[in-house]
């Protein structure tokens, strides 16, 4: 494990996107940043900018209106990057799954690395999910340049 690989695990910056969530998961996500849980001790920072971020945390189910936005945010992030789907809606679409206006879970639009179930998931579960995403991130960091993955490829066209 090289220096850069170790640094990648030690400093995951998060961008949080509310993809039409009821705000329950969002409140739990922000609770993770409070002195009670303080994720900054793991080097985790909640940045507002996808260009600076390593982990994309998405809450809520995708609908036809915001699928494009989600995809754009994902494409703006530079490799290596990981995606965490938060809550029942983010994972599968939850109670909105069969709605006429929703697509379902966010894996319908972008590739998801970690699913954190719950309605809403506890802050501990969210931290656990992000930590699981770190091993994925390290793996991607190691394979960067080796696999023929084209940077910023279009993931899905609507």
């Amino acid at each position: 494990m090289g220096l850069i690989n170790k640094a990648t695990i030690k400093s995951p910056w998060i961008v949080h996107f509310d993809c039409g969530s009821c705000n329950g998961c969002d409140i739990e996500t922000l609770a993770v940043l409070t002195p009670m849980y303080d994720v900054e001790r793991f080097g985790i920072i909640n940045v507002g900018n996808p260009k600076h971020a390593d982990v994309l945390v998405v809450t809520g189910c995708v609908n036809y209106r915001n699928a494009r936005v989600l995809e754009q945010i994902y494409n703006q992030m530079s490799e290596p990057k990981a995606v965490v789907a938060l809550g029942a809606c983010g994972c599968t679409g939850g109670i909105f799954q069969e709605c006429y206006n929703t697509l379902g879970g966010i894996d319908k639009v972008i590739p998801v690395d970690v699913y954190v179930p719950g309605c809403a998931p506890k802050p501990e579960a969210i931290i656990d999910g992000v930590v699981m995403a770190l091993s994925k991130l390290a793996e991607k960091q190691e394979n960067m340049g080796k696999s023929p993955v084209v940077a910023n490829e279009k993931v899905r066209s609507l």
Partner: protein
Amino acid sequence: MEDLLHQITWPMLAIFAAIVVAPLLGGLLTGLDRKLTARMQGRFGPPILQPFFDFFKLIGKERITVNSTQTLYVLGALFFAVTSLVMLALGHDLLMLVFVLAFSNISLIMGAMSVRSPFSKIGAQREIIQMMAYEPVILLMVVGIYLVTKSFMIQDIFTYGSPLLYKLPLVFAAFLYILTIKLRKSPFDFSTSHHGHQELIKGLTIEFSGVQLALIELTHWYETVLLLCLVALFFAQPIWVGIIIALVAFVLEIIIDNICARTTWKFMLQLTWGFGIGAAITNIVWLYLAMGR
């Protein structure tokens, strides 16, 4: 042999310290800053080495540039910051140093202006306003030092008999004041903020990612060390007292950062021009009259 040591070895060591030791020191100071800030907010905080982890992670990220000139501007900012620190280490011209440091900042502003993001542009414009606010104070500081030592050379400050602080107390206060702006601390961190998810979504640095962001961070480390060295210059006899004063000033900045809310640019401009320039000019007029007698 003694002469050779004096002419080559010491300058070489000084340059080495400026280029290699300074960023390490700057990174550690930034780590200390984050730790202290976290403790003041009742959190545990990241490890002291966290800025280095962030730096190496950013180096390893995929390289995305918005346009090809952006990289040049970032490298320019870094180059001028390193140059000014080397000038300081060699005891060169203080006036020149201030101008070179301004170039470093202007490079960053041009880099932020070269992209089309509105956040980046607002951040750059606010940075220009900040420069407009603090540059006169820095220039007046140089003028004050010249009036005392009769020279622009930094090495003459060391050979001058007594600490500058005795003759330039108000200039020192004004410089401490603008240190808050230069270190991008609250209440004056409105062009870009150190804390995540705040003002203008990182404003000035929004369109920089990966290696470029790492270089901007490196530039900031160099700048932090340079500014603290300038603080130490006010108490250069003996220098270790100056270093202690610089570290105290740094901790003071962290405290100010945590107890102040962000102000508007208008308020900052009024306050800096009113208090900063006012204090510096008062000091210089007093010095002029005292010397005229």
